[in-house]
């Protein structure tokens, strides 16, 4: 119980009616100092707060560094994605050019293949031969001309890139000599 509450007590008597006597002079005094033993927790609190603040600053620094590191990483990955996208597009274009009909025909011609003039079919259900089979010959009425008749400047570019590599590091443009089937189907090679 403090002195203040004691002083106010008469006015808060049961019934709560004002007491009909001159207002007593009010005594406002500061709360007495806390006992000396209470000072120590405040110091601890200050230290804790300061420590916390320090921790927060350090954490923010660490987080900030991590974030910006992440940003660099994202940027690097985005660049990598873009570059890979470009490479993919280039390779797709190469595949499409190499798989163009005139190139496949030229490869086939170089392997000695010819176009068969007389189609015939073997029906498996009754072993019937449909059509008139005959050996494929190259004495057709219209001898097939050189496979380069239907032009493709992209193939020409591809060819020149292969015959005269401009840069030793360009690895996609490598032509191998013998075709080996040891590792599955060989990749198409243009000449």
């Amino acid at each position, binding site marked *: 119980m403090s002195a203040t509450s004691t002083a106010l007590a008469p006015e808060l008597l049961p019934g709560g009616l004002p007491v009909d006597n001159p207002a007593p002079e009010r005594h406002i005094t500061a709360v007495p100092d806390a006992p000396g033993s209470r000072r120590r927790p405040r110091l601890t609190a200050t230290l804790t707060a300061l420590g916390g603040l320090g921790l927060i600053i350090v954490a923010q620094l660490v987080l900030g560094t991590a974030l910006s590191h992440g940003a660099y990483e994202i940027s690097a990955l985005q660049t990598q994605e873009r*570059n890979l996208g*470009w*490479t993919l*597009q*280039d390779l797709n*274009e190469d595949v*499409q*050019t190499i*798989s*163009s*009909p*005139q190139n496949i*025909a030229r490869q086939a011609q170089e392997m000695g293949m010819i*176009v*068969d*003039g*007389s*189609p*015939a*079919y073997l029906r498996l259900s009754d072993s019937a031969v*449909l*059509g*008139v089979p005959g050996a494929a010959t190259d004495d*057709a*009425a*219209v*001898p*097939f*001309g050189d*496979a380069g*008749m*239907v*032009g*493709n*400047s*992209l*193939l020409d570019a591809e060819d020149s890139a292969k015959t005269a590599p*401009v*840069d030793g*590091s*360009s690895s*996609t443009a490598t032509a191998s000599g013998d075709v080996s089937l040891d590792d599955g189907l060989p990749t198409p090679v243009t000449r």
Partner: protein
Amino acid sequence: MARSALVTARRRGFLIIAGVMAMILVFSFRLFDLQVVRADALVAAAHEKTTGVTRIQAHRGDIVDTNGEVLAESVTQFSLTTSPKDVADQKVRNADGTTTTVTVDEMLDSVAEITGTSASDMRDTIDAALEKDPASNYAVLATGLDSEQRLALPELGIPWLYYEQADKRVYPDGAVAGNVVGFRSGDNEESLAGVELMADSCLSGTNGQTSFQRTTDNVALPGTTQIDHEPVDGGTVTLTIDSDLNWYMQQLVSSQVEQTKAEYGIIVVTEAKTGKVRAIAESSAVDPNDFTATDSKYQGSLAFQGTFEPGSVFKALTAASLVDAGVADHSSRVVADYWYHAPNGANIKDALPHDPENLTLAGVLQQSSNTGLSQLGEKLSPEKRYEYLTKFGFGQPTAIGFPGEASGILRPVSEWTGQSYYTPMFGQGVSTSAMQVANAFQAVANDGVKLPLQLIEGCETADGETSMTTDDSDGERVISAAAAQETRKMMETVVTDGFLADDLTLPGYRVAAKSGTGEQFDEAGTLKTTFFASMAGMVPADDPEYVVTVHLKDPLTLLSSAAAAPVFKQAVTQVIKHYEIPPSTTPGSDYPGYWK
């Protein structure tokens, strides 16, 4: 004194308050003016001063064939640029702490090794730019670089190299269907020919835009870039063309053009029951990747744009009209002499002298007799014949609407006098495009119903909407199914018994065809000694799946349709193999060509 001092003080107070109020009022007005009245203009001005925008290029759509094989696509390419004022030798610190100087020429040499352009040319470009403007900060060193080159260049560590990115149009199959696919201008800004032009609005997308906060010297502030609107890529156009088949036909027709020293040749393959064009092969094929290498008169599509007098292939159509009108059938008899002196004064003769022959209508087609057909053709009024030719599609472009497509010439009946009363019966005095001939024979193949020809299956945009499709039309009946069948059977005997039988017969298959050797006049109006050789036909004859038409202009070593016949046979053979058409199981036509 004290009172007046009080008044003065009050007045001063009042003045101060009034002054402050006035200031507040002025500022309020100004604030209102700035924030409300002129707000939009000021915001815009501020925005303009601090914001930069860049265009995001929308990808132009692909053109693919009926199997999805890419015929035209857009790829990203790069240009190498530099800031000439910054081009200087460079000091490089070595591992051991010493520095060496790399000269500009050495650096340009290493650039040239990657780009393939000449180092001295690049040096000249830089010097020329500096000479013009010592503070020059832009010059293009190399263009058309691919990603491999683009990615290799920064590894040289040259600080004054910059890159630009631009879409380029490439055509992976080169000249395969090149005349049909068309091409765009060298700067990829404008479509110039073919489907590129025809389907331009669907192929081209809508460019997008990004904006960013910029500094006074126009450098984008990091992290401020935002996309205002995304680019909308163009649609993919699917053609009815089969690129593999088209390649074969091009190779074939080019081979024969070379062998017969013809000017050019065309093969068209059309699906009989749908009107879809599967191949348009032209010997003078343009490679859209490098269209300037081709003579400008062959850069378009002669199948659509070129016209010619078709000659005797028309006899099959005349016979079809006669049969449909009920005035003749395959056995209608005629005595065909070398010359026919017509009642109206016209003089018709056959290609080669011969004794009088007792021909049937089928025989007239087999021997391709002008005199025989003229006599039988008289049974049908010119008005009717004109009507049939119009219904077969002559005198008007096909439904495809190819850019610059020709209508050909079909003169009105009022002009059919004397010789020209007869000549349209056997394809002279009329001019047609190869596509019109293909469409007319499609009608014969499709039991008399002419379908609108189709070159484009459709154009599909990124959000799945399809446009440019052809409605499943019932087509237009030109002749009765019975007349079409009878015509085909007559054409079948052309293959088995006609004068070109040796060149045309295909063991195991029923093929219907008609040859044509169109006479040509030069610009001065004199008859040329060379011909326009044609073959038009279909396979299998009993129930046609495909219509094959072949045209050769001015073959020199074979001066007749004999030049086109072997091409036709090989083309039909390829169609049979490509579409796996089984051999015929029904007996062939037995219409006799002669009567006794």
